[in-house]
């Protein structure tokens, strides 16, 4: 079996990436967190019904709560509500769904809600389809029922309010699908509810917004290069960052600074996640 001796030497000579230990530690942290979440969920599912549609749980931000308590509905006042909340398992899919809705006067809020609802529906349908396709491929390539039973998929819809003032709201909605690899998409919404329109980078930063943003991104990429010259960001000639434009996603931080958000894999390797750059 000398042939295998050589093959085994080749195998053992596989170069080990430097970041392996970081990735293993990240996996450990993730796993611990998920373990607690699952345990908690099992407990919660046992004690309470876990399907709540149209819960209308008020987003407990002090500003919003105070505003809602003191002022009856006036032009510009808004609330962010969880309009759909579903946590539970169905056919091997773990759902963790919290869909936001903006409650405000004016067409913009309605339009935003409709867009979000549409995306949620598409996301859930796609997740189910992916799971079906995967199941088919799984059995077609020799998987057994028993092995299949061990598999689950996570489907996530969640949101985070990044900042809010009396009439301005910035929030991010995340859609995730996690099974063998994970897929995540984020959508940013920046609304001027007093004027009933979307907020643009141009109005936040002035006419030089493109140069300003590009500079911030380039500086951020330059700062990410480690002492060995390694960075997760792709060089421009290999599909890396070129320039921002009207379609570049951003949210507004609590202090009013816009933060640019790039989709995972768009300008950097997947390990970098979804890169963000504040434009200060």
């Amino acid at each position: 079996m000398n042939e295998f001796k050589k093959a085994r030497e080749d195998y053992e000579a596989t170069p080990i990436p430097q970041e392996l230990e970081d990735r293993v530690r990240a996996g450990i942290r993730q796993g611990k967190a998920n373990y607690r979440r699952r345990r908690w969920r099992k407990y919660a599912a046992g004690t309470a019904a876990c399907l709540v549609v149209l819960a209308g749980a008020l987003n407990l931000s002090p500003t919003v709560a105070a505003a809602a308590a003191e002022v009856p509905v006036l032009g510009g006042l808004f609330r962010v509500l969880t309009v759909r909340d579903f946590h539970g398992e169905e056919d091997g899919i773990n759902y963790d769904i919290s869909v936001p809705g903006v409650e405000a006067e004016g067409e913009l809020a309605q339009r935003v809600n409709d867009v979000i609802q549409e995306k949620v529906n598409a996301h859930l349908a796609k997740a189910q389809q992916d799971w079906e396709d995967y199941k088919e491929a799984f059995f077609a390539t020799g998987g057994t029922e028993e092995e299949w039973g061990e598999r689950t998929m996570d489907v996530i819809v969640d949101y985070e309010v990044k900042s809010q003032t009396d009439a301005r709201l910035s929030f991010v909605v995340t859609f995730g699908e996690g099974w063998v690899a994970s897929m995540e998409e984020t959508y940013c919404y920046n609304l001027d509810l007093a004027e009933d329109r979307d907020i643009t980078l141009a109005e936040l930063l002035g006419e030089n917004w493109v140069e300003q943003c590009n500079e911030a991104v380039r500086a951020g990429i330059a700062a990410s290069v480690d002492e060995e010259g390694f960075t997760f960001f792709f060089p421009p000639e290999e599909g890396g960052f070129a320039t921002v434009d009207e379609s570049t996603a951003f949210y507004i931080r609590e202090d009013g600074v816009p933060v640019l958000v790039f989709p995972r894999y768009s300008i950097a390797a997947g390990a970098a996640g979804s890169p963000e750059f504040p434009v200060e």
Partner: protein
Amino acid sequence: MASLKEELLESYLIGGQERFYRLAYSYLRDREEALDAVQTAVCRCLERRDSLRDEAALGTWFTRILVNTCMDLLRQRRRVTFVPPEALDAGSYEDPLPEDGALADRVNGLPPEAQTVVKLRFYEDMTLREISEVTGWNLNTVKSRLYAGLKKLRVSLEGVTLE
């Protein structure tokens, strides 16, 4: 109690990381994907630690998670890989022949199931019984997959210890 298990898992995972990476890389042949696979398997291992009842079986249990993760990634890739027509050559329709490069490469060209058996047997020095525990396939299936794999590799069976 739970934290003792957590510590045990943690030190096992940190200590064995290079071995895990090599195994993942041998399936996926891609640095980033292999890192993703190791991270995913490590995460699942902690997430599902309640299903490990016998701590002595930690090795086979984790290998099972890791191998399943890699095989899933391969299956998923098979579903989505786009191969441009010009990249196809006649050779890719046939089983690899001995002169098609090193044995290690030919092992990686085997179907995922046969690959698993061959690698665990010859790279990780597992017995067929252990492989059967890792994969959940019964002993005869493991044997037949090993024979089929070796036949495809056109490796002489002389001197191969199968038990």
